[in-house]
């Protein structure tokens, strides 16, 4: 049925099967109209045009689509949008402070923890939620927090180090990953 024949009787002018709402993303208001069954992933990418959030499976299997809803990591591909109206949504686009990168963004860029960068937005958001809870996470806590995220490029270890480095930066600590991660291990004599 063409859309004009499906207009709801509620005076909103919005067709049946569609929802009109204002989403709060990274502190900005996004008035959007979207199919009611669409996930947050779809609405962020297609209606808000915030394409920083990625998808690798759309079935909750890869973590590429993770965003924060009221500070909690959520797989946006499994999140029905209508349930997050009125909540505070954070995506990778909102991570930096002004033109300055967030410590996680800095350390991921400098340590090679983002290669193709496709898993990165999801991992950054999950890591950010962790750092908000835990100022000095250890390897196990980081691994546990990120266990739902797949990265096919890096081999993961650099990501763990980059999270620790960012945590240190956030704390104002000058700890940094071992020089081996920048230059390779010294050849044993």
């Amino acid at each position: 049925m063409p859309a004009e024949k499906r207009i709801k009787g509620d005076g909103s002018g919005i067709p049946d099967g569609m929802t009109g709402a204002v989403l709060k993303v990274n502190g900005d208001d996004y008035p959007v109209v979207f199919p009611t069954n669409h996930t947050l992933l779809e609405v962020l990418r297609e209606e808000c045009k915030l394409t920083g959030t990625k998808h690798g499976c759309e079935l909750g299997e890869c973590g590429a689509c993770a965003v924060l809803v009221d500070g909690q990591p959520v797989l946006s591909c499994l999140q029905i949008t209508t349930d997050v109206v009125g909540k505070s949504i954070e995506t990778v686009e909102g991570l930096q402070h002004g033109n300055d990168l967030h410590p996680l963004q800095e350390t991921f860029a400098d340590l090679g923890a983002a290669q193709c960068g496709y898993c990165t937005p999801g991992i950054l958001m999950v890591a950010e939620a962790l750092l908000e809870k835990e100022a000095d996470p250890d390897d196990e806590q980081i691994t546990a927090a990120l266990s739902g995220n797949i990265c096919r490029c890096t081999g993961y270890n650099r990501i763990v180090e980059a999270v620790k480095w960012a945590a240190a930066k956030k704390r104002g600590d000058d700890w940094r990953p071992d020089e081996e991660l920048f230059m390779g291990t010294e050849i044993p004599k």
Partner: protein
Amino acid sequence: MAKALSKPPEEQGDATETEFNLVGKPFRRVDGRAKVTGQTRFADDVHFPRTVYVKLVRSTVPHARIRDIDLSAALAMDGVLGTLVGAEMPDSFGIMPVSEDEHALAIDTVRFVGDSVAAVAAVTEDIAHAAALAVKVEYEPLPTIASVAEALATPEPQIHDYADEGNIHKKVSLKFGEVEAGFEEADLILEDNFFYEGSNHLALEQHSSVAVAEDDDRVTVYSSTQCPHYVHRALTKTLGIPSSRIRVIACSNGGAFGGKSDPFNHEAVVAKLALKLGRPVKITLTREEVFYCHRGRHPVQMNLKTGFRQDGTMASQHLRTTLDGGAFGSYGVASTFYTGALQTTTYKLPNYWFESARAFTNKPPCGPKRGHGTPQPRFAYEVQLDKAAHELGIDPAELRLRNLVEPNTITANWLRIGTIGLKECIDAVVKGSGWKARYGKLPEGRGLGIACSAYMTGAGLPIYWNHMPQSGVQIKLDRSGNVAVFCGETEIGQGSDSVLAVVVAEVLGIDIRDIRLCVGDTDLTPVDLGSYSSRVTLMVGQAAKQAAERARDKISNAVSEHMEVPAESLVFTGGRVFPAHDPDKGIAFNEAVIIAESRFGTLGTTGSYIPPRSPGRFRGAGVGPSPTYSYSAAVLEVEVDPKTGLYDVDKVWIAHDIGRALNPVLALGQIEGSVYMGLGEAMMEEQAFRRLPKHLSSSLVHKFPSMLEYKSPGFHDMPEMTCYMIETDDERGPYGAKEAGQGPLLPITPALANAIFDAVGVRVDQVPIHPDLVLKGLHAQATGHEARVGPAEFPDIDFGEPLIVHTPEQGGDGRAANDPKAKRKSLRSSSGTMKERDEALKEHSSATLTTD
């Protein structure tokens, strides 16, 4: 060409420390900020107003004739704008000129579950999806082939009629040297059967393409591709419009690993529909569809027979392989040769016989995945060496050291070896792991395993035969001081943009932020063949270096006239240009450009790279040559639970001969990523299939086309890794650099098998090494049987008359001694009309890459 000093002499201390401005220093990749802010534009992020969305109707049966496609229900749906079927795009394409067996949409036959039958375009993706489900296809089922064994037993009906024989796509037999005599001379002959399962690349980004028509016969396609140039060629074939009106833009890839190096049918479909509908057209595959596109690692069976002398050196080797190719040619002809070609590049092998057959099967096509065709035989070789070391009572590391290929030599199969840092690699992992004190001496259940490998730094020949550069770079510079660099290379995550930028910045002595890159655009950038075969650092790097050096020379000439100093005395560094003896007399880089622009007018330079010619002249010699080879050695430490067969890889020591690390932090990332992917294949990854029971259609289906069920390693699976980079400074690479993105994957699977043997005495001769296989071996051991798990036999195949090639040692000339087709007209003499030339090229291409 005079090499400019990059620092004034008085600042030069230790030459190795100060030789370069940027090369060798860890710096943030040029696209680093975009990647962490979500600004990198992947293909699915490309959006145009009025975009139309496409879904493909995919075959639900593994092999059938298409009787009828009924589009009426789909076309009747609101929002459906158009459809496409195979008959509208009748011209075939395919990456290799010898196997152009794909169509945009199936013409009359489907060959695997997931093959594309029709396309539906609609105003939303939801409508396109519903419409695709509404298309009714009537199939007439054909017998199906699930394995190499079935392909051998079922010559008819043929999946493709151009196969070498029945359903055997390609057969190869190449014999170098006195193989039988070599075996006679041997003190120990080992013959083993191995199996290496297929796997998917599982790049996190699903393939996506967007096409925009600009005219009735002009179209731009944005795509997630590693090889925009090859997509350009495929679109020219399928769209039937001149290549000058087709533009392909490769977006940054969200990982690729070989899985985006074929031109794909969906790229042709969106281009055609954009021309048909006059609106932007987009397709983004679901993860399930990515498993159907596949082009992943071929499942390979191997029989390896090697003759060793008492001292551990090798006298002869005979390797037989089969490849389960899936339903299309893809890169398969090259893959076939690759299962044997690099066997000679690590250890001296005076006599070598390689035989292989690739079968067509009714499964998604296999193709190139990281290491392309070489990890499988490398697994077999390195496990067998471990067995030989035990038989001969020689330490496995020592056995390898005794056999190393010498630098600057030619192998028995006519590959020219450049620098080789394998000894240093082995020394590093042996010392790092404490091998001598710990190997064979760890408590029961704990073990160490070693393995080595070599890989190409770029394929020596292009996919289609031609005389043109494999990589081109153009540089434009002007009075602003900004340097724009144009190159067809494609960033797939490996850091190719950073390689391009650092080489230009190094030569011109400028800040990397003063460079603007324009890459992967077939209209705007000179051709680079693509991000495959580990070719980019070397080939793009050399082309960029040449273009930048030409720009520097132009500037030097103008500035030297202006300053009245010799051009050779000018130093480019720190954004300044100055005479080496008088740094204070210097000027800013942009002032130097102004002087040159005033003197010569608009400034621009180009650089090209063509690999050196390889000495092999026999049919099949086209696969394997490379400007130089990288080398790796790895030691893995495992702990095995003898009760369950479950094991943990605790630690990996990896050493890689990288020539020179242009940016160590990125190079390490490539090495670690390769180790990770190798571990995935060693431990769990498999693209497996099953036949449904009879009452469920007995279809041949993918076992688990989803990310959850297709197991790949996660954060918690990763061992600690120690990476050593060995710098051999190879003169063939830019600043001495070799590849790093594929080679370090290769030693991981055999090192795991060897470590498990050291831990519990069980040989697992196949990958992935599932814990239940280890357990099976332990049971066999406990009950007094051979503690080995793996294939019992190798299929009986007639590979045909071998092509006899005398080795360099035998005084051969690189040609086959018994090739009836060898006396071909030389290409150069066949000038004349364009058509004659084309035909000669075609003939030559098949001659070089295949054995017909």
